[in-house]
């Protein structure tokens, strides 16, 4: 049913469900993960981490550790304070943004539990670990700032020297920006007002491969292997942080075992391993344990969200006000401060809000710092607005899909400029929703729900809806500039024609499971007319792929893939004069198709000349046109002209055991529109994985701290990832409205599932239990929380008429008298 299917030539690679090139080595155990690397004389690093959330370091005695067998060196903050610099924050969201210095090894104060206070270097990993236990650190405990709302009120300070916990306040207002009306006016004039407060709990990316770094200081350059999503950014940031020439650092991201934003970072451990290798002159390796990973790898989400939605009684939305409090944790990592801001343009989602205001207060606490986690800003936005649309439907007593449809952008209205100032290029929300309802059996499930309700079944059925769009393909450089981001959003690619006819493609987009090698091969095979098997894709090594901005934000295909196309087109352009020379024809009379140049009008039977033959001719360089350089290789750097805006409709059916509060997923259907698809197998895989991460936020995962700032979900025993036995098979399908902003017509897909699924699940569980008076349940919706909500709902008195018209401090989920009156 995809447009690609209809239009592609029989031999075309794009659109085929090619099996991945990456898989052979991974299914046979010939993997090259960083921790697999062993170098001669390699030393091992173990980190000593502080147990307190907030403390002053009053003394470190490393003598016992120094004397422990096999130990080569012990480094403390004092030893490296003049070399380690401050870990980078590449996104100062406002000129006034406040941030403490961010040392790799804490020098005199520790600001979250898990921060490194010393590094032990030994001949074996076991010896390093043994000695790490012997480093004796004395602390003076300070009062930790653990609670986000208390932090925002500056009751206690996470960083006393900063004088406040408030890092930055970022505001977008449609009236001020000229993209819409005044939201306060809309609220004042609202016939229906829905005010809600939601909690985005703290999550841990929990990629399966623990982070690992190897630094080899031998030779003229430092070579760093790291389990990173961002080898190029890491190289530049290391150079800037450590004042080492960029040209002296080579970063390699070999096989990387998942990232989900969690490896989009410049980590203290990377800096420390680099410093240790430089100091010892030996290759050094650090590999984290899972407990270390959960404790000290950056976390995600962690916000309070207050929303006010104004509407008319007929269901038309008139305004949306969003007030976020976002937890930075103890420090600003690479893009920490910008993550909640990425949601700023997405709360209005697919709906035609005439007025909109977004405010985000970034706040420091003494917890692990937050940063990108799959979706980064957009799941938060989608969750909140999709919950609000359900709340509006409930207030109005109408079907949630119907209310959404009334307000969303119709397919004939694209391109559409939103109240947040973005131009959505294409979409068809009607088509995706219709298809999803059909696959889901929406009407039948609604009927079953009614039957169960009527019979008072112990197990109630709920149906959850989530429609979504997201901005992905980060990002047009000028947009990033306007948001004060520290870099551009372009991507680089090279195409090299080898004399044997094989093709090497170099991409700046460094994959860690997304299947770039396969997808890029498909694209290049079509572009150059060479066999899929003859394309080799190289990436993840700054010496090979010298330029790039890596993989995050669902950008690889729409930005990196487009760069590959541009480079391939340049190859063809470079080959054209040579082809004309060989065919003794005029350049303007040449046609290029299926890998061959032919002469227009020269008849069907002509052989023409193949591009790969020209590659050999260029290698020999015996007979080139005058002035032609002997190369067909080409580079391209592509800066996207817009984001891409995938969208979709997700429907979820949850069964809730009202006796125990346990919920079980009955069915999940998603119909996503990600534009044209290069490889449907890979796209489906991205969606499945995304779905489960989003579902896991709704049902299972939460990073929990105790009142001392100790992470109590510090292992996989307590940070509960779902297993195969907790999940179901999903029904996925696609509609296609090609993106108009890239040649492939593609839109990003990496984060779609995660963004859409969380609210679908939460809305479904709530739909099952609203009948008992339940209006909200915090994520993760544990059986206990669901059970308590039912108990409280059943026992609670109706909301008094004198309810406050607006938010009272600390009182979430209040409705106005107007909305009470507005109920059908």
């Amino acid at each position, binding site marked *: 049913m995809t447009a690609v299917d209809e239009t592609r030539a029989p031999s075309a690679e794009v659109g085929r469900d090619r*099996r*991945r090139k*990456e*898989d*052979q080595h*991974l*299914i*046979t*155990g*010939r*993997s090259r*993960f960083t*921790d*697999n690397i*062993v170098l001669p004389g390699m030393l091992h690093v173990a980190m000593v981490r502080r147990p307190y959330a907030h403390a002053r370091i009053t003394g470190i005695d490393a003598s016992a550790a120094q004397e422990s067998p096999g130990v080569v060196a012990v480094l403390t903050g004092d030893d490296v304070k003049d070399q380690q610099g401050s870990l980078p924050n590449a996104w100062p969201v406002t000129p006034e943004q406040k941030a403490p210095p961010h040392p790799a090894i804490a020098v005199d104060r520790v600001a979250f539990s898990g921060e490194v206070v010393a590094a032990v270097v030994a001949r074996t990993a*076991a010896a390093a670990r043994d000695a790490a236990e012997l480093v004796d650190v004395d602390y003076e405990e300070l009062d930790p700032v653990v609670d986000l709302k208390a932090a925002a009120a500056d009751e206690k300070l996470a960083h006393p020297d900063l004088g406040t916990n408030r890092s930055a306040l970022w505001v977008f207002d449609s009236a001020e920006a000229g993209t819409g009306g005044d939201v306060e006016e809309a609220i004042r004039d609202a016939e229906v007002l829905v005010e809600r407060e939601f909690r985005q709990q703290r999550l841990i990316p*929990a*990629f*399966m*491969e*623990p982070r690992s770094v190897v630094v080899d200081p031998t030779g003229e350059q430092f070579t760093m292997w790291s389990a990173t999503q961002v080898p190029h950014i890491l190289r530049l940031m290391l150079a800037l942080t450590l004042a080492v020439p960029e040209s002296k650092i080579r970063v390699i991201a070999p*096989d*990387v*075992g*998942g990232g*989900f934003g969690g490896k989009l970072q410049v980590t203290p451990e990377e800096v420390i391993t680099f410093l240790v290798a430089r100091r010892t002159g030996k290759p050094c390796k650090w590999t984290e*344990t*899972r*407990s270390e990973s959960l404790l000290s790898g950056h976390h995600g989400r962690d916000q309070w969200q207050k929303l006010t939605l104004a509407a008319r009684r007929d269901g038309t939305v008139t305004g949306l006000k969003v007030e976020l409090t976002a937890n930075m944790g103890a420090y600003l990592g690479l893009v920490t401060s910008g993550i909640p801001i990425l949601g700023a343009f997405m709360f209005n989602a697919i709906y035609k809000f005439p007025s909109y205001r977004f405010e985000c207060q970034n706040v420091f606490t003494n917890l692990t710092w937050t940063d990108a986690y799959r979706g980064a800003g957009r799941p938060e936005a989608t969750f909140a607005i999709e919950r609000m649309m359900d709340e509006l439907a409930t207030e109005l007593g109408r079907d949630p899909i119907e209310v959404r449809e009334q307000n969303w952008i119709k397919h004939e209205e694209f391109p559409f400029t939103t109240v947040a100032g973005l131009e959505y290029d294409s979409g068809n929300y009607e088509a995706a929703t219709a298809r999803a309802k059909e696959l889901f059996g929406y009407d039948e499930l609604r009927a079953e729900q009614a039957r169960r309700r009527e019979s008072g079944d112990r197990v109630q059925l709920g149906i959850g809806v989530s429609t979504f769009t997201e901005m992905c393909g980060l990002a047009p450089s000028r947009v990033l500039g306007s948001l004060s981001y520290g870099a551009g959003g372009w991507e680089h690619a090279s195409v090299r024609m080898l004399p044997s006819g094989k093709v090497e493609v170099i991409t700046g987009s460094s994959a*860690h*499971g*997304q*299947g770039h090698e396969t997808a890029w091969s498909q694209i290049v095979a079509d572009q150059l007319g060479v066999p899929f098997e003859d394309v080799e894709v190289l990436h993840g090594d700054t010496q090979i792929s010298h330029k790039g901005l890596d993989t995050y934000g669902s950008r690889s295909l729409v930005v990196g893939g487009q760069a590959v196309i541009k480079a391939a087109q340049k190859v063809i352009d470079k080959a054209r004069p040579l082809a004309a020379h060989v065919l003794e024809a005029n350049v303007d009379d040449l046609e290029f198709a299926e890998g061959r140049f032919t002469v227009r009008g020269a008849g069907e039977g002509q052989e023409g000349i193949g591009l790969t033959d020209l590659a050999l001719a260029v290698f020999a360089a015996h007979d080139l046109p005058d002035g032609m350089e002997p190369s067909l290789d080409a580079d391209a750097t592509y800066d996207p002209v817009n984001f891409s805006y995938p969208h979709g409709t997700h429907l979820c059916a949850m069964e809730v055991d009202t006796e125990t509060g346990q919920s079980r997923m009955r069915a999940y259907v998603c119909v996503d529109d990600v534009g044209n698809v290069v490889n449907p*197998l*890979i796209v*489906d*895989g*991205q969606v*499945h*994985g*995304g*779905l*489960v*991460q989003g579902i896991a936020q709704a049902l299972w995962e939460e990073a929990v701290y105790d009142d001392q700032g100790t992470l109590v979900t510090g*292992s*996989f*025993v307590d940070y509960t*990832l779902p*297993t*195969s*036995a907790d*999940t179901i*098979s*999903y029904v996925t399908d696609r509609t296609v409205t090609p993106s108009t902003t890239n040649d492939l017509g593609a839109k990003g897909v990496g984060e779609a*599932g995660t963004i859409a699924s969380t609210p679908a699940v939460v809305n479904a569980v709530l739909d099952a239990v609203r009948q008992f008076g339940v209006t909200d349940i915090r994520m993760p919706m544990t059986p206990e929380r669901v059970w308590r909500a039912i108990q409280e709902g059943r026992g609670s008195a109706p909301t008094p008429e004198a309810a406050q018209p607006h938010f009272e401090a600390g009182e979430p989920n209040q409705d106005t008298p107007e909305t009470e009156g507005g109920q059908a």
Partner: protein
Amino acid sequence: MTRISVKVDGVTYEDEVEPRTLLVHYLREQLGKTGTVIGCDTSNCGACTVHLDGRSVKSCNVLAVQADGHEVTTVEGLADPVDGTLTPVQEAFRDCHALQCGFCTPGMIMQATDLLRENPRPTEEEVRVGMEGNLCRCTGYHNIVRAVLEAAAQREGQRA
């Protein structure tokens, strides 16, 4: 140091190990069998699953000394050593796109192989429960479950 003799992927090795050496560390560091990876420290994730005397075990939860006199098969020992022919489970993982980053894959393949040995024709539910000791963060398990079911069907086909 304790002397052990272990047959790994068809080859017998004699080595000195510290008693505290985990089987997974022995495989990776002393034998270079890095195909088996380490994903956690609480034996929850299953990434390090190998076969010990033909049964799946988490090699982070077995001491190397405990493998003395026993036989271990890792993901590196599955494909035919001569012609590289993959096992039906390996084939199915590729065919069904049951892996993305590939880190959990060795453990998944080893557990799936054991599961099918014990139950050659599992239902979807049996596959889901049988794989519950292996965590994956990329695939949402959807295609892993499909792959195990496809491998079962494949093996049935071969037998028929």
